[in-house]
């Protein structure tokens, strides 16, 4: 027997989904359509004239080795941000879950950083690692390590990853913590009686039961790393040194809003749209098979 609500006629269901469709149309389909359309032209900034170039913008981009390199940068950056924001979050959630006293306080403290806007977080971390007045770079100097993310690409990448992942840990913590609370105690107690120690219980029982949450967070965090880390990069490195922290979305901004090259910028957002679309399909097709609901 199906537990599904069925409607008579079409009017009511259409009416009910209309708001969502409207929002998607206004904020997604229309701009995305505009981006696709504009990616076929090279317009002048003032919109006085524009030249149809077909796929010329895409050709221009894909033959540019610096643009291709920015795919690698984006991949490295996204993987690092996702790992650095999920693993510590899970670890903290497990610890907070075991607390009996004061877990409320810990929880609140751990969620706090999520309230900090990415650009502000960027400035905060920049202050700590500032090559001249930064607290951490000063301590590193005392230890004999010369921190200079202004010239060292690896250090710059490390810094933007940490700054992007930091606030995100709270968000992931919240979800992991809720999911942990939902793991049935009886299953864990049964395993404990069978003699399984904590970490064994964690890896064989808890982690598989968390897999829907982990999967959800994986998708959300990758999208976050792709699109929302713009503020952090803008405030900390501006894409430098050289091009070591120029991720795809940052290039969309700088070419479109600094360089006034709207054709190339539109083409880049179309490429980004395709990349993220493919990535999500892959995640759902490949990884979701291993998720137990």
């Amino acid at each position: 027997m199906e537990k599904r609500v069925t409607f008579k006629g079409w009017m009511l269901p259409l009416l009910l989904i209309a708001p969502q469709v409207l929002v998607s149309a206004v904020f997604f389909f229309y701009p995305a359509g505009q981006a696709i359309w504009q990616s076929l032209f090279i317009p002048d900034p003032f919109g006085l004239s524009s030249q149809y170039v077909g796929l010329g913008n895409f050709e221009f981009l894909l033959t540019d080795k610096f643009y291709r390199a920015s795919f690698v940068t984006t991949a490295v950056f996204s993987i690092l941000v996702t790992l650095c924001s999920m693993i510590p979050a899970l670890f903290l959630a497990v610890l907070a879950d075991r607390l009996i006293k004061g877990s409320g306080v810990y929880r609140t403290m751990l969620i706090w950083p999520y309230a900090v806007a990415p650009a502000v977080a960027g400035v905060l971390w920049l202050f700590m690692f500032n090559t001249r007045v930064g607290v951490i770079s000063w301590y590193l100097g005392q230890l004999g390590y010369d921190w200079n993310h202004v010239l060292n690409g690896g250090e710059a990448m490390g810094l933007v990853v940490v700054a992007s992942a930091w606030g995100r840990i709270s968000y992931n913590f919240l979800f992991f913590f809720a999911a942990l609370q939902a793991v049935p105690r009886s299953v864990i107690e049964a395993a404990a009686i069978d003699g399984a120690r904590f970490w064994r219980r964690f890896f064989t029982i808890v982690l598989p039961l968390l897999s829907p949450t982990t999967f959800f967070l994986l998708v959300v965090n990758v999208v976050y790393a792709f699109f929302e880390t713009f503020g952090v990069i803008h405030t900390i490195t501006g894409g430098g040194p050289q091009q070591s922290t120029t991720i795809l979305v940052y290039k969309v901004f700088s070419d479109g809003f600094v360089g006034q090259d709207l054709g190339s910028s539109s083409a880049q957002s179309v490429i980004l749209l395709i990349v993220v679309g493919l990535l999500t399909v892959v995640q759902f097709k490949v990884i979701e098979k291993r998720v137990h609901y």
Partner: protein
Amino acid sequence: MKKTLLGALAASTALLSPAMATAETEIQFWHAFTGRLGELVKAQVEDFNASQDTYTVVESHKGNYSETLNAGIAAFRAGEQPHILMVFEVGTATMMSAGGATKPVYEVMAESGATFDPDAYIGSVKGYYTSTDGDMLSLPFNSSTPVLWVNRDAFEAAGVDPDTDLSTWQKVGETLDALKAGGEDCPLVTAWQSWIHLENFSAYHDVPFASKDNGFAGLDTELMLNGEAQVAHLTAMGEWAQDGKFIYTGRRNEGGANFRSGECALFTESSAGYAGIKAEAEFDFDVRPLPYWEGVGNAPQNTIIGGASLWVLEGHEAEEYKGVGEFLAYLSSTNVQAQWHQDTGYLPITAAAGDATKEAGFYDENPGTDVAVMQMTAKEPTANSKGLRLGSFDQIRGIIDEELEAIWSGDKSAQEAMDSAKERGDALLRRFESANK
């Protein structure tokens, strides 16, 4: 809650509208200045408004240079453009190519009948904003040029004579050795590396930065910044960076903090850094002309400017343009300019304003403030030192910054880096050319 919000909205709209109700013709002026500079602009506007009762200039701040340009462009697309838009020098080619969007200043002045003598403006300042036919397209507003700032106390601490000759890079090189040997950790630091060490460097040594007279003679221009002179300079700078004699701090003016705190001995920065350094430095400082390489090109030629100019946008009434003309004439008047020059460290845009400042004894009381003026005006500008007019130049500067970083970190030789900058920059120039055919 909703009601209060709506109420507040209605109230604020009501507050904004009375300006429209007055009989005076309103002129919108969008600029990029905040802080002290913002106050000074506001004072100029208020003074102009008080001086006559036909026009009211309304000034508004629209963010930094890039944001102001973007705001102007977006407003134009929406048909809501201001009459006057401040555009930084890097955006000049973009504005020039937008023929249907801008109204050249010489035309505005001719139509408005306001007093306007193109010859009154300093050649190397107005040259940047003048067409090849000699017509002024936008009004130079704030212009500065790079100079060398010296921390005299740091020199003494390192046992180096602060009055030592720093006119050439050869001598600066020797001084850097001495400073380093004397225990100075930050002998040289710079702001705006591309503007100072490539763009101005090229003009100062009278070597081309780009073909077609640095882009003045046509959009089919190519970068020539990988020439012998530039590469030699960057090679030397690269070696200094490797030896810890030149400290790289970032692409913009981050180095200013290092210099003002007394950490660094020498600083190449805009003459407009004067106000900040004077306010903050707790050490004896000196302004010297930008050094040049003895025997390279025709150095010292003249340096070029940075800063912004005022563009008049199309699409308004003739009556309003008349007011724009009056306002621009007011801004160019000797008293206003001389005051601006003395308050900010920016260059005067007319020779008369420079003379008035001299007569008032300002240069005697503030030694070094005339170095920039002399450096700009010592020689008639050549095709290589009139300025730069390159499309997509903001992005090209970004590319140059990236390649320079590769030199400072030792990843690339100066020649490799500049060849790569040329190749990448030329690709953008070709794109700009095809977008503006």
